[in-house]
Every structure is written in structure tokens, then in C-alpha cells.
């Protein structure tokens, strides 16, 4: 790579620079930023006073009526009133997008080879055709979400430039990666763009709205509330 392209940064070619020191910087920003945000979360929240409630009487559970399909009516009612029940399409699209957001970068063959060369990590890779299909599904989900942001008035009313920028930062590595894999346009330029966009996303996680990645886990498990997943030991 370095022999085919002019040296731009001392003895490094552009690719070597973005895949070397720039990648290290973005990983440092990601790790440091995530640690800072987690510490900030615990510094700004405080321990909640423990309140012990009377246990729910057993007869309350006994009154639960089961449907012929084996799912309790109380459970069905809970699902109907949840976001899955009220916004089924958005929930499915969002869930698929977030799963693929983690799955694709860790399972693409080119990445698993890179991880093995760099750190000796042996991750399971999926066939290239499968990773192509997964990327297309991811881009479809991302397209659906940006359409929702622009078409649904209530979402549009609270959207700012930052929301569109964050969407672009998230989608860019997948678009450039797909184009690079298909060898469309100039491979070298697209590859550099792919690496830079991925590094930008990593660096932006802790400092933009992409931080909901760790905030979601912290708030839903640690902050006590009606909708928290666990009991919650902290309060705002």
C-alpha cells in the first residue's frame, strides 16, 4: 500500500496513518470517554434510600388467567401497552438496527482477519454473501429511521442538526465498507474513508447522543423507577 501511494505523513502513507496512530487515538477517545461518562453518571446520581415493601399476596398471582395459547392475559396486556405493542414497526426496526450495529463489524471476514493479526483474537466470521445481506438490512433499517425522523411531525419537531449528523456518522462506516467490499469507485480512497468514518464513530460515542449506548444500560438498571429493569439502587 505504501509503495503504490505517495508518502504523506513522514514515512507513513495515508492509509498507514489512518489505520495506525489515528486508529489508536480514536480507540483512546472511545475508551477514555466511556470511562469518563460512567464515572460522571455515578458522580451525578446518588444512592437511593432502601425501602422495603410488603410482598404481593399470593392470591394476586393466582387470579392471573391463562389464555388457550399459554400466555397469561396479564402478560399479553403488558406487551400490548408496551412500546412493542404501540409502535411495533419502530421497535422491530430499532432492535434489528442495534443488533446489526454490533454484529456486522465483529463478524465481517475482513475484520476478523484484522483482529487476529493485531491481537490474536479468533472471532467467528460469517460468509461474505451473508455479511452483504446483513449490511443491506442494516442500511434499510437506518433508511427507515431517517424517513421516520423527516416524515413524522412529532419526531421532526424535536430533531436538530445533531440528530441528522449522528445518523450520518453511524451509517457512513457501513456504506463505505459495503462500497469498498464491492470494489466500486477507487478502492484505496474508499478504504481510507471507511477507516476514518469508523474512527469518527468510535470517537463520537462518548461525546454525542451515541452515548445512549452506555447510558441506556446505566439508567435502566441503576436508576430506580417504575420502568427500570432491575430494582435500581440510585436516584437522580
Amino acid at each position, binding site marked *: 500500500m505504501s509503495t503504490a501511494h505517495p508518502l504523506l505523513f513522514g514515512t507513513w502513507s495515508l492509509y498507514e496513518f489512518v489505520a495506525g496512530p489515528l486508529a489508536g487515538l480514536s480507540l483512546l477517545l472511545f475508551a477514555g470517554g466511556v470511562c469518563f461518562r460512567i464515572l460522571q453518571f455515578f458522580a451525578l446520581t446518588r444512592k437511593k434510600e432502601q425501602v422495603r415493601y410488603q410482598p404481593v399476596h399470593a392470591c394476586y398471582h393466582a387470579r392471573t388467567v391463562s389464555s388457550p395459547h399459554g400466555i397469561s392475559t396479564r402478560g399479553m396486556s403488558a406487551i400490548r401497552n408496551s412500546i412493542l405493542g404501540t409502535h411495533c414497526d419502530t421497535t422491530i426496526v430499532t432492535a434489528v438496527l442495534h443488533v446489526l450495529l454490533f454484529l456486522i463489524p465483529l463478524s465481517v471476514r475482513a475484520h476478523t482477519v484484522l483482529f487476529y493479526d493485531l491481537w490474536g483474537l479468533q472471532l467467528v466470521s460469517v460468509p461474505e454473501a451473508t455479511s452483504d445481506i446483513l449490511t443491506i438490512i442494516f442500511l434499510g433499517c437506518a433508511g427507515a429511521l431517517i424517513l421516520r425522523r423527516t416524515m413524522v411531525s412529532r419526531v421532526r419537531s424535536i430533531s436538530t442538526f445533531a440528530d441528522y449528523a449522528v445518523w450520518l456518522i453511524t451509517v457512513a462506516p457501513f456504506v463505505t465498507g459495503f462500497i469498498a467490499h464491492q470494489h466500486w469507485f477507487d478502492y484505496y480512497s474508499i478504504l481510507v474513508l471507511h477507516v476514518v468514518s469508523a474512527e469518527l464513530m468510535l470517537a463520537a460515542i462518548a461525546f454525542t*447522543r451515541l*452515548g445512549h449506548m452506555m*447510558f*441506556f444500560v446505566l439508567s435502566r438498571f441503576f436508576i430506580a*423507577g417504575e420502568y427500570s429493569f432491575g430494582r435500581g439502587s440510585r436516584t437522580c
Partner: protein
Amino acid sequence: MWWQQSSKDNRNHIEIMFRRKQRTVKLLSSFCVRCGLCADSCFLYRNHHGDQQYMPSYEALTSMKALAKNKKLISREELENVRDLIWKKCVLCKRCYCPLGIDIPSIIAFARTICRTRGMNGVYPHSLGEPEDENIGRVE
């Protein structure tokens, strides 16, 4: 009363209050991804046929944006706009649901606290003698 206090005192009061809770509220609102999924958990939003001003995240974000931006030189008119948003369009029933776990009621409650320091107490449509919205509760 607010009109007996000097404007400088009021500004200082707001500054102190902001410093106390600003960082927490900033953290909460900075991770809002503006998904709009909190809307349907609000009965006022549903009763007003999807008027975005009744959406919990709209009220929280708009009021905090106005108060944070103009905390030093906020005009009475701007404060009244915020008051209309967080009192007339929200009853603080704390039923709003955020998929990310953002405590929206605490942001609105904080905005109300700041308004109170300027003598802006809760005003509801019936207390002003305004007619009730004819569209409320109408089933299409």
C-alpha cells in the same frame, strides 16, 4: 414577591439553582435521541390528537433549552412561554415513558422550580378563565 426583588437577585438565584442541578439535567438531556416514543405514554398528547407541544420530550427539551440559553438575561415574555409549556401542557403525572430511561418529569420539575423563583407559578386554563379546549376528549 418577585416584583419586589431586584432583577440582579433573581438572576443570582437562578444561577445558583442552575449550577446545582444543571449537570444532572444536562447529562439526562444530552442522551435523548429524539425518538418521540414518549409521546404515546402521555394522555394529554393523545387527547390533543397528536399536538407535538404536549409531547413530554418536547416540553422538557424546549423549556430547558430556553432556560439554559437565557439563564442570565431571560425576559418575562420568554419565561411566560416556558410556563405555558410546562404547566398548561403538562400535569406532571410522571407517567411518561422513555425507552432510554431518561427521567423526563425531573427535567420538567426543574424547569418549574426555576420559573417559581421568578414568581411564575402554575397556571392552568381553568384558573385563567380560559375556555376549555373543545377538542379535548373528542373521539374521531
